Structure formats: structure tokens, C-alpha cells
């Protein structure tokens, strides 16, 4: 896609020039011209009073992979840590099945490390086939062995689509695979669909710090690679009776220049940085007692988020200052902010009101927090939160 100015309609008013975050619009012969530095953010389209700025299809395409159409199959690289397959792999098998069905092809998983029972699990969660390499080199995660072996498999078996989780592991080594195989990789996808017309994979992802969404294509190169955020895709159905093929792969000659000397696990609540968390569960004076935070920690843990607090809770010494959100604490902008027993004083709102989704749970229906909440729950925190926790556990199957 490209953005161009229709010079017939352009009046040279220059309104678009200052709207561009990349300064990619210049005036040529009194008409606006969008130069090559355009990043396709579309900020200019709407500001033009004449409607002279338009989107067009991209004319040229990259040369692409030879024998593009001979590539077939959907692969999920199943990340494992300490011999256990990561949940995101199971979610990707769910998504992968839909894509494979749409393409009329098979779904395979690739597993490096872990043992045969984990490979079997992948079949039960939906894979038709598992390429499994068992080698001590995969006990610790190093990029190069994974890059080398996955690239070899891709070159040999020519899958059309290869997915993995957008985790520290996936986001580290997948780009190297894409570079080695010279294909396109789209990071952090929130949605994957097959375009019924072209059969291409439509990869949707956020950009500009989440301010806009972009649909990305990799039309000419194969495989189409993507990393997907955990907890975005739905797992498929677990079928204990499901059978499939497990192919043993030799990891011969694969080496690593880096070495993991030690692995340190840390307690989850300190690891999740408040300002980087996607989900924050915050507590205020309405909790009434410090034990309330234990309940919030449990909920945050289930949601993979962090625990925040209003100033009132911190002043009561129910939780350390490092968790404080608000004017005299931290400013946060998570996807979901769940305010429990927080009244919503201006000083607190200032720290969290730009959260994407605000859920407020409070006994008082007139609490100011409900003015900014997307979901208002009037109720007792000690009844509603346990109910949420219980339901979440049921839904997640644990």
C-alpha cells in the first residue's frame, strides 16, 4: 500500500505537511508530495480539506522466493523451557489448525528439546505431525542451534507458514531464521487469517506504541513467518485419543557460540514491571485490609499482570510505594486496568486514565472511578474478585 497526493485536487494549502510525524511531506511546484520516508501512518489522509490524499495498492513487489507456490503446510515452533512446552505453543496450534484448514494443508509442530511425551502432547493439542529433535544442546536456550536447525528444516520441507510465540525466546531467534532464509517476519501479531482471494496470510499487529493497527502481507516470499502474543489466540481442543506422526530429527553438528552459564528464576510479582505490564490489578482504600492484596496478587498472577495501588493503600502500609499509581506514584498505560476498591480521586486517575480498558469494582455506585470505567461493577470486592478468579481458573483449565 502507498499513500499518494492527487495533484489535480491538491490546492497547496500545506495542512498535511505539519501533520506528518516523519516529515515525509514536502511541497513541489506548490503541490504536496509524499516522499519515500512515509511510514504509512495515514495521519495526513484525514487532515486534507480537499480529500486529495489517497491510498493505492503497491505496484512493485519484492522478487520473492523461487517456487513460491510449492511451499505448503503450517508449522508451529513449540518453545520449551526446562523440558515443558510453553502455553503459547498450544494456543498457536489452535490458530494454526484454522489456518491449515483454510489452506487445505497439514499442521505440524517443531520441538527442539524436551522428551517424547511432550511431543505427544503436541499431537493431542492438534498437530498432525511433530518434528522432534532431542539433543542436550537444547536443554538451555541459545539462539544459534535453534536458528540452524529450524532453517535446515524449513529449507528441506518448505512450509508455507511458520509461527511461534512472541516471547523472549521467539522474538530473539525467529528474526535470525527469517534473515537466514531471506523471508518476511511479522512480530507480535494479534490476529492471523487467510485471505480467501490470494491465499496469503493476513497478519495484523499493533504499531506506534499501540496507537494504530496494521495488516501486513508477505506476498512473494516463503515461508510467511510470524510471532504471536501469548494469551491472544485460543487453544484448540485437547484430544487424548488423537494420533499423529512424530519424526525424529538429528541435530547433527549444530553448535552455539553463546553458552548459558546459569538460570535464575524470580518471583513473578517483582518481575512484572508496573509500567510495562499489559494488565494491572490495583487496590485502594476500599480493600479495607492488607490481606486484600493477596487476593489481587492471585488475580494478577492469573492474568499475567502486575499489582498496583492507590496512594491510600500505600499510606496505610498495605503495599510498598513501588506499586503506587497516580500523581505521586507511577503513570501507567496497560491494556487492562482493574481498579478494586479505588474511589477514583483525580490524583489517582491522572496515573491510569489512558489505560485501554478500565474495569472498576467498588461498593459505592457514585464513586468517581465509574466516570472513567469501561466496565462498571458495583459490588463488594471480596465477592466479585474471588468470583473472577474462580471463573478464570475454570476457563484456563487449571
Amino acid at each position, binding site marked *: 500500500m502507498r499513500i499518494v497526493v492527487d495533484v489535480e485536487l491538491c490546492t497547496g494549502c500545506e495542512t498535511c505537511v505539519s501533520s506528518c510525524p516523519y516529515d515525509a511531506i514536502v511541497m513541489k511546484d506548490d503541490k504536496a508530495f509524499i516522499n519515500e520516508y512515509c511510514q504509512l501512518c*495515514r495521519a495526513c489522509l484525514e487532515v486534507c480539506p480537499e480529500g486529495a490524499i489517497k491510498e493505492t495498492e503497491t505496484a512493485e513487489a519484492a522478487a520473492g522466493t523461487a517456487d513460491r507456490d510449492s511451499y505448503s503446510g503450517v508449522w508451529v515452533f513449540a518453545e520449551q523451557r526446562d523440558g515443558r512446552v510453553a502455553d503459547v505453543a498450544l494456543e498457536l496450534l489452535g490458530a494454526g489448525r484454522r489456518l491449515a484448514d483454510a489452506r487445505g494443508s497439514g499442521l505440524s509442530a517443531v520441538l527442539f528439546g524436551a522428551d517424547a511425551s511432550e511431543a505427544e502432547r503436541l499431537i493431542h493439542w492438534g498437530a498432525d505431525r511433530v518434528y522432534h529433535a532431542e539433543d542436550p544442546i537444547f536443554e538451555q536456550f541459545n539462539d544459534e542451534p535453534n536458528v540452524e536447525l529450524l532453517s535446515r528444516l524449513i529449507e528441506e520441507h518448505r512450509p508455507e507458514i511458520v509461527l511461534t510465540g512472541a516471547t523472549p525466546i521467539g522474538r530473539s531467534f525467529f528474526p535470525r531464521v527469517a534473515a537466514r532464509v531471506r523471508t*518476511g517476519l511479522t512480530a507480535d501479531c494479534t490476529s492471523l487469517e487467510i485471505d480467501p482471494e490470494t491465499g496469503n496470510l493476513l497478519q495484523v499487529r499493533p504499531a*506506534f506504541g499501540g*496507537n494504530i493497527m496494521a495488516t501486513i502481507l508477505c506476498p512473494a516470499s516463503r515461508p510467511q513467518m510470524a510471532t504471536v502474543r501469548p494469551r491472544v489466540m485460543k487453544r484448540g481442543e485437547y484430544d487424548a485419543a488423537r494420533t499423529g506422526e512424530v519424526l525424529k530429527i538429528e541435530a547433527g553438528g549444530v553448535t552455539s557460540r553463546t553458552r548459558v552459564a546459569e538460570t535464575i528464576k524470580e518471583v513473578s510479582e517483582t518481575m512484572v*514491571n508496573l509500567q510495562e505490564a499489559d494488565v494491572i490489578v490495583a487496590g485502594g482504600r476500599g480493600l479495607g485490609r492488607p490481606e486484600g492484596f493477596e487476593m489481587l496478587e492471585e488475580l494478577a498472577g492469573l492474568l499475567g499482570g502486575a499489582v498496583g495501588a492507590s496512594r491510600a493503600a500505600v499510606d496505610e502500609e498495605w503495599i510498598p510505594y513501588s506499586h503506587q499509581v497516580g500523581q505521586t506514584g507511577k503513570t501507567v498505560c496497560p491494556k487492562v486496568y482493574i481498579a478494586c476498591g479505588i474511589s477514583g480521586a483525580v490524583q489517582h486517575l491522572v496515573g491510569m486514565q489512558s489505560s485501554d480498558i478500565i474495569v472498576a469494582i467498588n461498593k459505592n455506585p457514585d464513586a468517581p472511578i465509574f466516570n472513567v470505567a469501561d466496565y462498571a461493577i*458495583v459490588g463488594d470486592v471480596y465477592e466479585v474478585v474471588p468470583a473472577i478468579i474462580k*471463573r478464570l481458573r475454570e476457563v484456563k483449565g487449571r
Partner: protein
Amino acid sequence: MKIVVCIKQVPDTAEVKINPETNTLVRDGVPSIINPYDLHAVEAGLQLKESLGGSVTVLTMGPPQAEAALREAVSIGADDAVLLTDRAFAGSDTLATAYTLSCAVRTMGFDMILCGKQAIDGDTAQVGPEMAEFLGIPHVAYVGGFEEIAPDGLRVRRQMEDGYDIVETPLPVLLTVVRELNQPRLPSLKGKMKAKKAEIKRLSHADIGADVERLGLAGSPTQVKRIFAPEAKKERKALTGTPEEQADRLIEELRGLKCL
């Protein structure tokens, strides 16, 4: 030790807003800044130079305006600055960008390359590892601490979801760094004065021996089909009923919005 830090000039996405009526970005008064993660990379380079000696060169691929970002890096303490600018680079996706940068870095020579974890406009975190692959060197991503630094190798902390790994790597190596690594220093007055007069080296595609077919739009396997605003904020919803019903509805809503 010759340290090259790759930086990017980006619009300050924290300040970018969406016009609710037209669902497009509003730029007005949004400044261009050095990608915040890159500031941590520059700081890391300066600290490494202070322990091991050598030099810190900052490199960016961008339009002529990107020079301002390079000068800012010089005011913080970088020794040299290089701007990779050429119409041939326009329209590059991460693969083409990584290829271009790696050609440049190869001609410049290096012992270590530092990058920020990701750029706050693209958010892909791909260019660093892809560069390492093109250069044939190892990389460690998400470095949050240095355990040991020696002229022939490093021990670093690599952040993982549930803790961190201590990874040993030989040199040369490419590292991508996270915020926890350090506290970036502010510019110095002498630095600002030096930055004002600094000579920024400009490189075009011919200067870096790049294969034209792998640059710009032609060298970019991915392309943008469509841009749209994320789902607009819905009407405020009151969730009523028993606590169990409220919990059910909430979870349903959040799943519908792909938050769970």
C-alpha cells in the same frame, strides 16, 4: 574496543493521539526523539568504553532530519556519528533495514554492536538479531545487566519471562538492551557544544557495497496492506447481577476484546 550503537529517530508515540472522529493519528506538536531504548544502548556503550577503552560510534538509517538524533547522541558522549541516507533505502521493512545497516557496519568495522530492544514506532525488535545473522556473529537479546566484561568476551544477563539467564558470549557480538540495564546519562554542556559542531559522516548505498536488489522496497518481503485504528472505546457498560454473573460477563467481554 570499537563499539557501534544503532539508533533510530522516532516520533514520541507516548504523545501521539488518535483523532476520535477520523480515527487517524494526530501529530501536532509531537516531537521526534531518540528511541528511548536506544538511549540505554548508547549509555551501555559509553560505560563499556569507560571500562575497556575504545570508541563509541552511533549509526542511524533515516532521512536527513535523523541527524538531530545523532547529534543528541554525541552530546551525551558518543565519539562519532554516521547517517545512512539514500533514497534507495526508502520503504525498507525490517529485513531490508537490517541488511542495509549490516553492510554499513561491515565497512565501518566493529568489536561490538549495541541496539535498543525495539523501536517504539515499529515495535518489532527484529532488526538487531537480523543484523547479527547477516554479519555472521552471535547475539544476545534483552540484556538487562553485565556480569563480566573482558576484551575477549562477556557474561551478560538475558531477561526471560520468569527471571533471567546468565549468558556467556565471545566477541564480536551484537546485544539488544532493555531499560533495566542502566540509567542513561543526561547530555553535558561540553557535549552539547561539541555536538553542535560535530561532523556527521553520510553514507549512501554506494558507500556500503550493498546489493541494490536487497535494499528499500525491492528488498522488503513484507508490506503493509492496510492501516486502521484499534477498536474504539465502547460505551461504558454496567455489569450487573450476582458476583458470579458479573465475573462471567467481565471475562466474556475481555476475551471478546482479546485481552485474555
